[in-house]
């Protein structure tokens, strides 16, 4: 059963790639057989997209939109009606062909340096831009759009609506692909993607629309001039991502303090954090909730630093409840002094309470921590894991929430097999 579950998402991924390749091939064939309409526009946008793809350099892994300029240029070409007051007629196929050509040319230096082009990103780009172009170009080329909306504010509004639809389409695609890669449940992934839309995604969309309109008014010069604010946005995002990464490292180091001090076993904090986030995702948490859970899990043992003598093996799960609660309160006091949100400190403080009094994050941390203590941190040995799970199940009356324990069992089932 597990195999079937694993294979289906990968098949989805293949299907998406195949669709992108088919769309791109059809577009190229069409352009070759019909010739290029307005070659200057096509060249300008193609070059712009290629340069935009180059900006992938220095992207942090996992960055949501590593080449925003390329994306904005592609969207602008898909939504381009007039150019300096002259109507265009390039149509949806040419849009896709130019985007593909631009992306391929832009990928050459990356390939030359040995980093293959991110296939997923290119497939996503082709499909979303294709979507926008198919929605817009036929309406525009046939003249229907001009008849309905004219060249006024309604036209701009229409572009806005199209952009929102495109963004939704992109979010769904991204979530499907992530699901295929990670096997996490689809709902929270989609929620994550939707929540991220107001970020770089909307900046890209707005810049695409602005460039389409500005090229309509002012001609192709609008392209290089008006992409500058987006570059600024990309820079801000990179800096933010960098400081976030550093912050994460520092929190992990703070969490390791208890290990170096000999209060807890090697890697305990990291294991609890990884397992907790996996369980949290399994239970439908996403975005900031997951971050909160991760930080709380990393720092849950920090209160032990206040103990004059270490608990044997740091296994708080086997201490009397009053002592557990005291350590939890001490930990909360330390965590409150860090810059993490107060909710993290609250989770750390409540980690030893009966599960009915706890927030979900604290329930997860409690169960996972107990699991790691009981399983002896072996991780690999299925026997210890099963015995530990069994012991957690016995405690579901009072200490551990049954749903959390079951989610933990499912996550472990995936990891251990």
């Amino acid at each position: 059963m597990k195999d079937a579950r694993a294979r289906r998402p990968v098949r989805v991924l293949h299907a998406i790639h195949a669709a992108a390749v088919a769309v791109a091939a059809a577009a190229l064939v069409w352009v070759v057989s019909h010739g290029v309409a307005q070659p200057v526009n096509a060249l300008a946008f193609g070059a712009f997209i290629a340069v935009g793809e180059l900006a992938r350099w220095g992207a942090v892994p996992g960055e949501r939109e590593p080449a925003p300029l390329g994306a904005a240029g592609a969207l602008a070409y898909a939504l381009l009606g007039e150019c300096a007051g002259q109507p265009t007629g390039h149509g949806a196929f040419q849009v896709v062909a130019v985007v593909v050509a631009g992306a391929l040319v832009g990928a050459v230096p990356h390939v030359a340096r040995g980093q293959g082009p991110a296939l997923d990103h290119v497939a996503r780009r082709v499909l979303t831009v294709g979507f926008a172009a198919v929605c817009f170009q036929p309406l525009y080329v046939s003249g229907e759009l001009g008849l309905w909306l004219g060249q006024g504010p309604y036209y701009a509004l229409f572009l806005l609506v199209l952009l929102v639809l495109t963004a939704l389409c992109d979010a769904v695609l991204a979530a499907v692909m992530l699901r295929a890669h990670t096997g996490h449940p689809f709902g929270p992934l989609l929620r994550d993607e939707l929540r991220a839309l107001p970020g770089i995604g909307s900046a890209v969309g707005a810049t695409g629309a602005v460039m389409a309109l500005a090229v309509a008014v002012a001609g192709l010069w609008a392209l290089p001039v008006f992409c500058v604010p987006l570059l600024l946005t990309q820079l801000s995002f990179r800096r933010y991502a960098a400081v976030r990464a550093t912050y994460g490292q520092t929190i992990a180091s703070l969490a390791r303090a208890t290990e170096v001090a000999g209060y807890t076993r090697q890697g305990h904090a990291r294991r609890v954090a990884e397992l907790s986030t996996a369980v949290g995702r399994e239970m439908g948490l996403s975005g900031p909730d997951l971050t909160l859970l991760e930080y709380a899990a990393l720092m849950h043992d920090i209160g032990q630093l206040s103990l004059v003598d270490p608990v044997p093996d740091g296994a708080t799960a086997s201490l009397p409840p009053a002592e557990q609660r005291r350590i939890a309160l001490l930990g909360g006091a330390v965590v409150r002094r860090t810059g993490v949100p107060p909710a993290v400190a609250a989770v750390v403080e409540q980690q030893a309470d009966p599960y009915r009094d706890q927030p979900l994050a604290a329930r997860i941390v409690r169960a996972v921590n107990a699991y790691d203590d009981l399983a002896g941190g072996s991780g690999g040995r299925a026997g210890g894991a099963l015995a530990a799970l069994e012991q957690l199940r016995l405690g579901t009356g009072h200490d551990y929430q049954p749903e959390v324990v079951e989610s933990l069992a499912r996550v472990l089932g995936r990891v251990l097999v």
Partner: protein
Amino acid sequence: MTAIPAAARAYILAVILCAAVAAAPVAVPAAVVPWPTVLLLAALYAGGELPARRRDGDDSAPVGAGTFFPVLLAAAFLLPPAAAALVPVPGALLGRVDGPPAGVRRTWRAARLALATWGAAHAYLLLGGERTPRAPDFPYALVPALAGSLVCCLLLTVLDGGIRATAVGVPPPRSGRWGRVPPPAVRRALSGSAAPHCVHGLAGLMMAVLWGSSYGPFSALFVLLPMYISCWIFAQYHRERAAHQATIRALVQAVDIKDRYTRGHSERVGRASVLIARELSMEEERLEVVRFAGILHDVGKLGVPTRVLRKEGPLTPEERRVIELHPEYGHEMVRGIGFLGEARAAILHHHERMDGSGYPYGLVGHQIPEFARVVAVADAFDAMTSTRSYRRARPVPVALRELERCAGTQFDPRMVRALARALERHGWQTSVTSDEAVPMGPPRTPQSPGAGASHQIRTG
């Protein structure tokens, strides 16, 4: 704080009068003022400034000032100068202020923005930009637009320089309590803000072009979205950065939990390390790293059993060996923190001695990383000048003499000399504890050279 010096009062009044004169042509009956555009732009600016400033009132992270700055520049490109000067006024008057004389601050802000917008509009017209929004001919249209935004930037910088000079004289701290010493030079402020103003100028030009096009003002709003998002993310960046620094403090305080009598020691070592490094004219980024090296140098004490750390009286050789493991523990702990860079080596080697008799590796002379030599001197200096449970603090000159005596065998003489010079220049206070906010850098009042005897030593 509430009292405003007379010079500043006169200056503000003069600027307000100038702004009023600049906007006066609007009141002339014959003036042609596109009032709908003025009102729309003013409302847009005010509407943009309000939520941006009011969000998270408790939080000092600067929500990127000037998210809606392109609106002002678009106004300068679209309207006659006098009318453009009116656009920032409602937003500036309604926005949140940071300090107590709210009325004065608001009026000042309005006058300053009005003058800057007015100047930008004039520069734009002078260079023949008046036709641009209707029939933009690129690339020439860029010239007046960029000139306008640069004039705006220049005016703002000059006006701010004036208020700084006439008011208290102390510029408001630019970054948080861990930030750098604010660069007071107007030149640096100018070069720092010219590039953002040019970006704002391009966005303003884009707004003006779309505003005047058949797509109307609504399409001009699209331009603001990327600007808003980058300002928002910039504010997030600052918040995250502050949180990160608080977490590093927590790492230090975790040491305090175990080793009580070193309270504040880490912060002071960080401060002294920066003094030394600045004296050696290291670059600004390395100063930041050396500060962290000083602050975190003893973080490995977390790994030493609390009983040993708190033990009164002489240590057994076994206990001494355990304590001497702390540089390695510390290095192990901060191994994963990428940005610490050189500071990690400093944490590992801050107990090495120049003659090779130190620990953990017994490195000699320049084998010891530079930062470790800095931190070693700062550490010893603070240990001598602060009160410990087993002895009283020594005066600064005595400590310096002691350091000089050990220079060459234990310490790098270069670092000791640098510390002595820095202390002559800036003085030293030992009263900072890790619980209070640390004002970064020494007090800015320079002391006359040779005022060594006037160093105040307050132990806390």
